[in-house]
Structure formats: structure tokens, C-alpha cells
């Protein structure tokens, strides 16, 4: 391979690499940057029929139940962002963190009746790390109420779909 040849190969591979990098970023910068929408966005911006979308929110306390559909066990729960809620049906394995009041991101499709048939449920944990004793003590002191219905700060973790400025 001559020197000129190698330079050509290097140049092309660099362009390819940079293109891939920028392409990935741009893909992420389009609508897909928003990993999920909130339940209250569902009414104003309904997803196209037959298209999968992700919805994020807290599992509404008291809404989780197991039902049977076509003889198979299916989990039914509601995902809320404090303003609106959507009912989700899911037949797969739930993540360990799944519980009432937990943040979740659900991938699914809209059913004709407006409920969501989920194909994937991911748990979204927040940025707070606390040992159980501390959270128990705080709960006893009444200073901290996680997942209390309705959430004191309605789902702060779930920001609106439009970009918001970073915290000051």
C-alpha cells in the first residue's frame, strides 16, 4: 500500500467515523432525544396509530393489579405524571425496582380503547441515594413522603417534553 493510498484510506475512515458520530448525535437530537412522553402529553400530541412510543411517569399507588387476558396473567397499572394518567397492560417480566410510586418508562402501543399495550417496562430511579434507615427516620418525622398520592412535587423527575433550561 503506497503512502498516498494509506492517506486516502485514513481520510475515508475518518470521514466515516465522524459521519457515524454526528449521525448518531443527530438521530438522538431529533424527536428521539426525548426518551419518553408524559401521560398529559398523550392527549395533546397523540402518537400515530400502530406506532410504538414510550410513556414515562410514576406508577399510581393502588392501581397495580393482576388480571387474566386470554388465559395469561397480565399486569395492569396506571402511569401518572400528577396531571393525567394512562392505563397500561403488560404481560412480561417487571424490573426489580417496579413498585407503586416508582418511576417507570413504558414502551407500548395505543389500543383502540385508549389504553396502552406495553411491550417493555423499564424502571427509572431518581438521583437520590439513601439507606433504608434514613428514609424510615425521615418518614417517621414526616419530612419526606415518597410516592405519597398525589406526589407533593408532581413527578419532578419527569420533565416536560420541551427542553427546559438547566437548573440555575
Amino acid at each position: 500500500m503506497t503512502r498516498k493510498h494509506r492517506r486516502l484510506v485514513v481520510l475515508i475512515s475518518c470521514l466515516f467515523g465522524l459521519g457515524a458520530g454526528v449521525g448518531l448525535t443527530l438521530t438522538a437530537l431529533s424527536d428521539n432525544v426525548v426518551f419518553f412522553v408524559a401521560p398529559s402529553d398523550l392527549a395533546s400530541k397523540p402518537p400515530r396509530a400502530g406506532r410504538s412510543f414510550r410513556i414515562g411517569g410514576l406508577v399510581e399507588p393502588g392501581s397495580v393489579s393482576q388480571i387474566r387476558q386470554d388465559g395469561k396473567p397480565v399486569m395492569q397499572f396506571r402511569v401518572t405524571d400528577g396531571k393525567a394518567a394512562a392505563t397500561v397492560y403488560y404481560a412480561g417480566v417487571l424490573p426489580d425496582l417496579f413498585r407503586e410510586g416508582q418511576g417507570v418508562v413504558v414502551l407500548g402501543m395505543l389500543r383502540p380503547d385508549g389504553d396502552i399495550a406495553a411491550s417493555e417496562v423499564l424502571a427509572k430511579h431518581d438521583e437520590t441515594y439513601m439507606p433504608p434507615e434514613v428514609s424510615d427516620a425521615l418518614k417517621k418525622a414526616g419530612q419526606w413522603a415518597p410516592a405519597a398520592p398525589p406526589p407533593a412535587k408532581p413527578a419532578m423527575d419527569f420533565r416536560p417534553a420541551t427542553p427546559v433550561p438547566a437548573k440555575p
Partner: protein
Amino acid sequence: MKFPPAIAPRPGHILHRFANPGRFLRLASVVQPYLTGIALVLVGIGLGWGLFIAPGDRFQHDAMRIIYIHVPAAWLASSGYFGLAICSILSLVWRHKLADLAAAEISPVGAAITALALVTGSIWGKPMWGAWWVWDARLTSVLVLFFLYLGHIALVRAFDDPERGQRAGAILALVGVVNLPIIKFSVDWWNTLHQPASITLSGSASMDPGILWPLLLSAAGFSLGFAALVMARLRAAVMEWRIRGLLLTRTREAG
């Protein structure tokens, strides 16, 4: 199009004009053992404390102990790239030999630590989120950072003339700097599965002190370890550069 012939390092001139690599070698051989030692001690204390003494999270229990390597690795992935960018500016604008060599040594270490951040994050994500990988803004932008490191590694070593490779690598590194704010603010700007920062400069760490302290110790240790590794590799690179120069003088004198 005509390309200038490959410029071999001119040992006699460059070595005397840029005394800095020599001064670096002397200074670095003194600093190296201390840097390495302190890094090892801090990482040992941080990880030992985090694994065996620190409490588990109320929801995540023991799985969150991965934080003691994931978070330092992720911080270093970004700050290492920042160091690479500074070296690139030094080498492009001031043509500093040591910066050229340093940039070429930062990127392999940076790529390794970025890979570590991605993989440990994945191992943490599977049991907690329920997925090894998702294409959210934070994960995607860190993956792009990894590709930038790989591109720099390949580019710097791809030319016959090392200076040409260093120049091209510096340009690539500087183009990639746009990615750093995207990584940092992705979790604030857009909905992501990844949670926002727990530790902010404004001081309100949403983290129990029993978890925060080992994390900070571990992060400090990893950072010093990163510096120690880059320093050792840079020493080797300076020596190899000198060897090339000496060999070249010999062949010239012989011929």
C-alpha cells in the same frame, strides 16, 4: 497535489530547543511513585468502604454499589477528554512537543475508562432499569465520546509522519469537544432514562453522606490513578522519541 517528504525528528536541534521533555522526565520520575501510591490508597479505601461498610440504597439495595466505579469512570471519561482537548490546543497553537505526545497517550487511557463507564453502567442498568442498553440522550452521547477516543487513537497513529497524525488528531479532538456539554446537560435538557446528577456544584447532594464519602474518595483515587497512568505512558513516549532521535543521529554519522 504534492506532499512534503516525511519529516523525521531532528534530534540535535529539537532536543536542545525544547528542553521541556527532559525537564518533564526528571520531574515525573520524582512525582510518579507518590502519585501512584496515593491513587492506590484512595481507590482501596474508597472501594473497600463502598463495598463493605457503606449502606445500600433503600430501593436499589446492594446493586447501587456499582456506583463507586461507574461514577468515577464516567466523570473521568469527560474530564480526560477535556485534558485531551487542552493538549490539542497546546499542540496546534504552540506546537508543544510534550503536548503532542501527551495527547497520544491520553486517548487510549480515556477510551478504556469510557468503555468501563459504559459497561459498568450496563451491568447496573440490567437489574435496576430492566435493560442493558437504551438509546437515551445520556447513553448515546457517552457512546459518541467513546467513538471520538477511538478515532483519535487511530488517527494519531495512522500517518508515516508522526507530526501530521498529531495535527489531525488534535483537530478531531477539538471538533469532539461539542459533545462534552451535551453529555453533561443531556439529563437536564431532555427526558432520559438516566437519572439527573446527584452531586452538583450548588452543593445539594441528594445522597446520604455514608454513600457520598466513599464515592468522593474513589473518584479522587481514580482521577490520580488516571493521571499516574498517563504520566507513566508519557514518560515512555518521551523516551521512545529520544531513542528514535539517537538512532537517527547514529545512522547519519555512520553514513
